[in-house]
């Protein structure tokens, strides 16, 4: 298993020109289907990973009726969210993250810091348009 993972990233065309876009193809374990690739935005500003609630159906899990918390959205209103876990795989490296399933089905797939930055040293290499994940040594 490689301890260093290098992931080439695309660029986004914006009014400022091309910007390094930290979109990572990550395999998500879906019950009864297996691994399915999704593009996540690696978001160092997000406390934890967030995905739309409807993905829980594909994961084969049932979320509670009442939300566990609320996430501040762009509208300023809180979006209900539910705690859960995702089993992920990047270039053969499997790991699990705690995450929030948001009630909004318009939430992009965001890979936040919780359980990711503690597992990997994360290097955003904008110059070379890549993200380097180096697995931390376990004590």
């Amino acid at each position: 298993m490689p301890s260093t993972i290098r992931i080439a990233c695309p660029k986004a065309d914006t009014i400022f020109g091309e910007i390094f876009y930290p979109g990572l193809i990550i395999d998500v374990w879906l019950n009864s289907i297996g691994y399915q690739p999704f593009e996540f935005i690696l978001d160092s500003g997000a406390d934890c990973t967030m995905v739309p609630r409807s993905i829980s159906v594909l994961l084969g899990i049932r979320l509670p009726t009442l939300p566990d918390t609320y996430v501040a959205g762009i509208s300023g209103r809180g979006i209900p969210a539910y705690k859960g876990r995702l089993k992920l795989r990047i270039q053969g490296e499997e790991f699990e993250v705690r995450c929030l399933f948001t009630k909004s089905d318009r939430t992009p797939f965001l890979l936040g810091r919780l359980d990711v930055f503690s597992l990997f040293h994360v290097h955003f290499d904008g110059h070379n348009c890549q993200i380097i994940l180096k697995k931390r040594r376990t004590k």
Partner: protein
Amino acid sequence: MVEKGQVKYKGNEDYVGFIACYKGRTIATSPTFKQLANKQNVRRLLGNKDLVIKHTVPEGMIAVYY
């Protein structure tokens, strides 16, 4: 050889929402993930390593997620 992250998906330049790409081509779009995942051609391909589901914004648009 083009690596996964470098793939430029065709056909999604003006779209806000979720897209499903199969072998680099957009095969389905939808404003919500639920609608996308329920599309027959997407459901049929779930679990296929050549299918990638992602969120997208139009070219030229600045995206800030918070």
